[in-house]
Structures are given as structure tokens and as C-alpha cells.
């Protein structure tokens, strides 16, 4: 078991810096999810921790030891890859045992560990099969098994569920979480799927363009996003951003309607989540409906803020019908409003 410390970590390819001064502390046994859009550097960060990419600047510490120059095999980590990277010519048993065999662990001990891991993952009947004879979900389990038998200090997951179908993904997500809690191994998990991130992580590190936007618990990120990017990225459908003017006590929206809200005077961007909009005949937020999505449990109304071109979405519980072009009014509780500075896109307290 180990804690991980990232200190002022920089990665550059030639002159292009792709990760900018990343800092972070991951406690022993913690499950941290690194989340962000494609190309934000999240996989690069994980691969640096694994030792598959070199470190340009700063330090990576695992269990208080700087591992910058250690080979992946010497870092006491195990990694699960997106396409599983199972050796196709080896049986499941050989795949799981390969790392142990190289470490010259005794045959009896290897068998014991492989079978123990196979029992945990319920893949014992498949031990003598080749990976190509297994389904996607089973391969996924073998890949996890290969990580477990090593008994490492850290698990690294690189989008391990993105090749599975939606139903299996939800199931495996829960299993990964259960397994991690049972084994108590420090884990870092990379994904671009914010639902996966919210459900799996003790804490989330949101990356954007090589910068850490925010690092906190899922609820912190949802309730108090520190930037417009985090607000828009966490939560589905995404947060609405409405340009507004504030004078300290009231907020004036672009179409002239006003609502109460205490924020510093001047131009602000008001963020409000679709699910926090409440129907109210005299509400200040007026949505002109352009499209409807019936999801069963709730209904999404897509449209624009009346009189402007600002797109917004409202999510209402149950079945709601509204005519296209109709204007619906909403209000929102003061504590569900978020304010951001239009220039820096950072949260205004």
C-alpha cells in the first residue's frame, strides 16, 4: 500500500508542453479518477506514473520514494489497458502468471496466487483458454486478474471499460469499485466518461488542456465547480451558462429579467444546472422550447433563453409535454446558482 505524490510535474514533447505543473496528493488506499476530454493529457499523466513516459520536470513519488527514473517493473505497479493487452498466444493462466514467472516466484506460489485471483474474479473455468476464446467482459476480468496477482502497491487503469457495451460497463464499474474497496490498493483510473468518474472515484482530478482544473470529491465538483469547465464537464446534461449583469443584490439576464443573487457587481456568467430549474409561472428564467427529449424518468427541454441566442436545457422530472416554440418560465434556488468571471472563467465566491 502506498501514497502517491505528484510535485510540479511537467511533460513536454520537444517544445510543446502538454502537462503543466501538476500537483497532487493521493492517499494510501484512495481511488482517484483522472477525468477530462480527449487530448487533455490524462493518459499521458497515467503513463508517466506507470513509467511508460519519461518525466520532463518535477517528481513522482510512490510510497515516499521518487520513482522518476525507475523502470515500470521496479515501481511495484500494475496497469489495466484499454484494449487489455493480453498476450494472445498464452492461456489465461499463463497471462496472469507471466509477470510472476519473470520475478522468479516459485511455481506453487504462482499457482496459488493465480487461482486465488481467478476465484475473486470468477474466471476459474477459463484458466486454460486463450484470450480470443473469451468475451470482452471476460478479457477485462483477466486483465484485472493479471494486475491482482502481482499484489502491487498501485493499480493504474487506462480507460479499461471503453471497449465494453453499455450494460456490461455499468456492471464492471461496480465490480472494479467493490474489488478496490476489498483489496484497499491505491488506484488511479483514467476515463473521459464523467458518470464513470463520479461513481468510481473517492476524488476526481479534472484535467483540461494539460492543467488541473479541480481536484476534489465528486460532490465538491458537482456542488462547487471551481471553473466553467468543471461546471460544464461534471453533470449531465451539462450546466447552462447565461451571461448576466450583477449589482450586488440582483442579477439581470441578457433578456432583461432579473432574479435575486448576491455576487460582486459587474458582468458575470451565471451557471445553473438543468435539473435545478424549477417550473414557476412567474419565474425569471424564460426558456423558448426548440426540441424535446423524453427519457422516461425525466424530460429534457432544449431551447434558448427567450429573446437571446443563448442555448440552454432544462431537465424536468416525469413526462412533460410542451409545444415547440412555447415559452416556459423557471426559477432556481439561490444556492444552486454558480457565478463565474467571464474573462478568467473561474468561480466567483
Amino acid at each position, binding site marked *: 500500500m502506498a501514497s502517491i505524490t505528484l510535485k510540479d510535474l511537467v511533460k513536454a514533447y520537444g517544445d510543446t508542453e502538454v502537462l503543466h505543473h501538476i500537483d497532487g496528493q493521493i492517499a494510501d488506499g484512495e481511488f482517484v479518477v483522472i477525468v477530462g476530454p480527449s487530448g487533455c493529457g490524462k493518459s499521458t499523466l497515467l503513463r508517466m506514473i506507470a513509467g*511508460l513516459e519519461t518525466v520532463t520536470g518535477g517528481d513522482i513519488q510512490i510510497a515516499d520514494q521518487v520513482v522518476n527514473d525507475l523502470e*515500470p517493473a521496479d515501481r511495484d505497479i500494475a496497469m489495466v489497458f484499454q484494449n487489455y493487452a493480453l498476450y494472445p498466444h498464452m492461456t489465461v493462466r499463463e497471462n496472469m502468471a*507471466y509477470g510472476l514467472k519473470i520475478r522468479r516466484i516459485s511455481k506453487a506460489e504462482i499457482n496459488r496466487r493465480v487461482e486465488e485471483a481467478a476465484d475473486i474474479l470468477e474466471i476459474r473455468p477459463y484458466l486454460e483458454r486463450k484470450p480470443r476464446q473469451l468475451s470482452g467482459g471476460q478479457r477485462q476480468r483477466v486483465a484485472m486478474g493479471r494486475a491482482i496477482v502481482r499484489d502491487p502497491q498501485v493499480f493504474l487503469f487506462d480507460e479499461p471499460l471503453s471497449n465494453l457495451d453499455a450494460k456490461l460497463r455499468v456492471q464492471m464499474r461496480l465490480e472494479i469499485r467493490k474489488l478496490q474497496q476489498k483489496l484497499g490498493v491505491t488506484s488511479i483510473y483514467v476515463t473521459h466518461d464523467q458518470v464513470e468518474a463520479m461513481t468510481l472515484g473517492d476524488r476526481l482530478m479534472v484535467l483540461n488542456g494539460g492543467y488541473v482544473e479541480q481536484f476534489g470529491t465528486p460532490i465538491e465538483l458537482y456542488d462547487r465547480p471551481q471553473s466553467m469547465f468543471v461546471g460544464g464537464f461534471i453533470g449531465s446534461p451539462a450546466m447552462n451558462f447565461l451571461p448576466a449583469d450583477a449589482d450586488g443584490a440582483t442579477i439581470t439576464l441578457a433578456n432583461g429579467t432579473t432574479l435575486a443573487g448576491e455576487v460582486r457587481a459587474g458582468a458575470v456568467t451565471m451557471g445553473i444546472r438543468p435539473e435545478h430549474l424549477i417550473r414557476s409561472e412567474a419565474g425569471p428564467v424564460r426558456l423558448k422550447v426548440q426540441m424535446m427529449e423524453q427519457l422516461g424518468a425525466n424530460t429534457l427541454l432544449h431551447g434558448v433563453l427567450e429573446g437571446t441566442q443563448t442555448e440552454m436545457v432544462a431537465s424536468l422530472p416525469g413526462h412533460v409535454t410542451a409545444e415547440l416554440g412555447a415559452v416556459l418560465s423557471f426559477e432556481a434556488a439561490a444556492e444552486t446558482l454558480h457565478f463565474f468571471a467571464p474573462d478568467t472563467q473561474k468561480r466567483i465566491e
Partner: protein
Amino acid sequence: MVENRPLLTFISHLVLILGVVIVALPIWITFVAATHDAVRMTQAPIPLLPGAHFWQNFKDTLFGSGLSSSAGAPVWRMLLNSLVMALLIASGKIVISLLSAFAIVYFKFPFRMGFFWMIFITLMLPVEVRILPTFEVVANLGMLNSYWGLSVPLIASATATFMFRQVFLTIPDEMLESARIDGAGPMRFFWDILIPLSRTNIAALFVILFIFGWNQYLWPLLITTDSDMTTIVMSIKEMLEVAEQSPQWHIVMMTALLAMIPPVFVVIGMQKLFVQGLTETDK
């Protein structure tokens, strides 16, 4: 496309049968000639049905000195020479190209692509083009009339290096990364992962290279003067050049027949792997 037109079926069969006949007739004539005695073979027309001397000719050819008048090596010796040469060339080429492809694909070193292109350019320099300097080198190394002399100059292979490079490029990077995390060093990765994954390609290449080696004519002709080192392919030609006699066709044809057998066995034995190696894309 599944069609059922009797005429089309008939024509396509006709074409195929014609093709088989054209390919098979010379082999049939070779076989027939190998079953008659010397006298019958000098008379016209040449026989088209097998005679009764197959075993006699077989024994004379394989264990006798072949032609009654020459002092050449027995044919089994030539077969052995050819076999050793072909095996050395095929396995040597495969080992060297596997290693050089491994270096080019998986290691970063200065002028990596330069080396790759240098190897690639040797495609333009087959033995026939560089035969004099090569002979000079082999002679200076004292490798004339030896198995090494027969095989080593033919071992360097740009084609095989290029092919293995393509094979290695199709193996996902994650395989290497996963092996690194498992603690496998470069040679361990090479042995445990790369070689098993390229198994079918190695087999396919082995078939092609074995036949390439077996059919070598010019190079063995040049560097072997000792009749104990002659190979079967060059000896067939020599057998035809007997002074003041008509060629002993029954022996020559039996030798030709024997010369065909090892490549045929290699092809049949490795057919399944060969086809897999050339068609398989799934890694």
C-alpha cells in the same frame, strides 16, 4: 457470388484441367523417363507410359555414383548438401532478419531510419550483381567448398527484414508496455512475445526461403570445385554435359525427381501455417 450455369461450370473446369495438364505433363514425363533403362531412352519416340526399371534406377542414382562414366558424388550426398545449404540459408535469413527488424522497430538509436533504408537498398543488390566481390571475400575467408561458403553470402535479406518489420508494426504497443510492466527485458520480450506472435509469418517465410535456397544455382556453381560439395540443382546440369555420349536420361530424370521431393515435403508440411502466415491479420 453463387451461380449455377452448366456451361460456365464446364468451361471453368476445362480451363483448370488444361492448367493442371500443362503443369503436370513435364513432371509425368520426368517420372516416366526415370522408370526406363538407358537403351529405351535413346530411342524415339520418348515413352509416355512407365517402364519396369524404377527401383533399379532409384538405387543406381541414389547410392551409385549416378552416371556410370563420371567420378561425381553419389546423389544422396548432393541431396544432403542441398538440404544443409537450404536449411542454413532459410534459418540464417530468418534469425538475422528477426533480430534486425526487432532493432529497427523497438529501439531508438541514431540513424535508425538510415539503417533501415540501407538494408532496404540491398534489395537492389542480389548475389548476381555483387558476385565478384562476394567471391573474393569468401575466398579470402577460406570458405570455398564449405557449407558456410554456400550459405553465409546469401543470408542477409532485406525482404525478410522488411516483412518482419511490418509484422512487428502490427503488434500493438500495449503488448510491449504490458511486458515492461510485467518486468520483461528486451530479449525476454523478443522470445516470449514477439517470436510466438510471428510464428505463422516465420513459417511462411521459411517455406519461401527454403525453396529459394534449394534452387540456388549460380553461387554454388562458382564456389564449389570439390565434387563432394556439389548441390543437386547444379549437378543435374552437369550430368547433361557428358562428352561423346548421349545423356543418360533415365539417371538424369531420376535425379530431377529426387531433387523435387524435399521442397514438396516442406510445402505440404507447412501449408497450413504458410497460408495463415500470408493471410492472417488478426493479432
